[in-house]
């Protein structure tokens, strides 16, 4: 658990003239949950999308600095983003299943990466659905449209879909903000379980959630990391006054 999976060095990101990330430094531990907290608009999602280079899709974006995944700079010119995104999966804020069957949703990633044999796909799909704690609920209707599932189920399906490509890192951007409390606690339990096999980075605006599920927490403010460290310490003895204000709810 002490090994670092991701090392972020002096990361700066500009949307046009707007500097959305400022000199971000972070060491994300392997097989741990790292939470990113902070008021909205402070750059949490932007930072998360730097880790799988989804920001590349935004026009007029400029990125400076390094993100090392297992020691390899993902912003190296020779990096193939499709291979990177295979290693670094992502779950979005709004559940976004494809308008296809549950099975086809989960099989989508493996199929992209060349898995064709029915049996192999079947077992990957089952394994991924089990990994996302949704297999029991959907095993009798794998051929039914994914859009027929409830929001909470859709989100766990999206997690299964991400797991099916067997990533090493899982990025989650406020994965429970669109869910009801019961679904939320299911996804939180899932995060606990996931960190056994994956490195999880989760954005949350819910402080209790960060405290409950994460090992490390980073507090962002206006694009900069104000404080970063073990979650227990950050919540019980914040070093920075601004962190304290934020976690005690005194922040605007």
């Amino acid at each position, binding site marked *: 658990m002490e090994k670092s999976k991701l090392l972020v060095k002096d990361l700066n990101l500009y949307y046009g003239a707007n500097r959305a990330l400022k000199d971000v430094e972070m060491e994300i531990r392997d097989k741990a949950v790292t939470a990113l907290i902070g008021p909205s608009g402070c750059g949490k999602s932007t930072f998360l999308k730097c880790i*799988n280079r*989804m920001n590349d*899709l935004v026009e007029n974006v400029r990125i400076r600095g390094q993100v090392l995944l297992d020691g390899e700079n993902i912003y190296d010119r020779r990096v193939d983003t*499709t*291979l*990177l*995104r*295979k290693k670094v*999966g*992502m779950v*979005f804020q*709004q559940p*976004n*299943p*494809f*308008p*296809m*069957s549950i099975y*086809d949703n989960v099989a*989508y*990633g493996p*199929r*992209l*990466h060349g898995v064709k044999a029915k049996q192999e796909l079947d077992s990957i799909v089952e394994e991924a659905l089990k990994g996302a704690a949704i297999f029991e609920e959907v095993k009798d209707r794998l*051929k*039914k*449209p*994914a859009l027929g599932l409830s929001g909470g189920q859709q989100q766990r399906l*999206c997690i299964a*879909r*991400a797991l099916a*490509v067997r990533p090493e890192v899982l990025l989650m951007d406020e994965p429970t903000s669109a869910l009801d409390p019961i679904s939320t606690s299911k996804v939180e339990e899932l995060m606990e379980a996931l960190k056994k096999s994956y490195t999880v980075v989760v954005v949350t605006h819910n402080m209790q959630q960060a405290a409950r599920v994460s090992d490390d927490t980073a507090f962002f403010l206006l694009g900069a990391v104000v404080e970063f460290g073990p979650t227990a310490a950050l919540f019980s003895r914040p070093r920075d006054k601004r962190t304290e204000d934020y976690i005690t709810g005194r922040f605007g």
Partner: protein
Amino acid sequence: MKAEKSILPGAGSLIGKKSGAAAERAAQIVFTACASFAILAVASITLYLVLSGTPAIFQVGLKEILFSTVWAPTAAQPRYGILYVILTSVVGTGLAILLGVPVGILTAVFLAEVADERVAAVVKPAVELLAGIPSVIYGLLGIYLLNPAMYRLERWLFRDSATHQFTGGANLLSAVIVLAIMILPTVINISETAIRAVPPSIKAASLALGGSRIQTIFKSILPAAKSGIVTAVVLGVGRAIGEAMAITLVSGSSVNAPLPFRSVRFLTTAIVSEMGYSSGTHRQMLFTIGLVLFVFIMVINLILTRVLKKGGQTP
């Protein structure tokens, strides 16, 4: 004691003037009237076509009409076989669809997903303009540009043939090309709208799973836009089947088996080109052709919406 003044109109009671009720009722009547008019129109067209199209069937016989290949309405012993005409419509529109639909969908993909904004800003209005051009203009351009080129190709291909009947380039192939071009704007515009309507989150999901741009287009965006694209195809097919003006001009309009370098006559062009001088059974036969065309379009629409739409819904 002053009563509290409320800001709500008619506060304290839910009973209002119900001023909206009359408007609601009027709107209801207008909507119903419009809907009834559409149904009335379809019903009367059907009735009229059946009434005007059946007499010739009784006189000539359904078998002779549908299965004979000889069309000689003005001969001393008139023959009214329209098998070649039917086949020409089937083959001609079929080929035009096979040519036009893929090109149209790929163009739509290009416009919606690939082209940068400046290129799209030029191509898009051009395509829209194409949609507004009257079909007879397509026909004129076909005569002016396509037929001569086709004639050259024909002379070269059949330079050693003793039996080939030269068409001057006015043949099935020319008609197919003109039809394919004519359905392009319909297919492109509607498909593009459908593709653009796919939520960006779908694209993001595919890319985040490690999909390439092309994989993302073909495996997630197009499937998500499927029902709109099916509509595009159905409307394109409708335009191709119903087209008469342009293909009258470029297809040579003599009744032949639908082979690429033969002059051919479609169901539509048969009616258009002969209505002016026909009379008696011949004239009634043209109405029968209209009936056949009508049935043809109905069947195709049914098949397309049933089969394609079913494929469009995820199981």
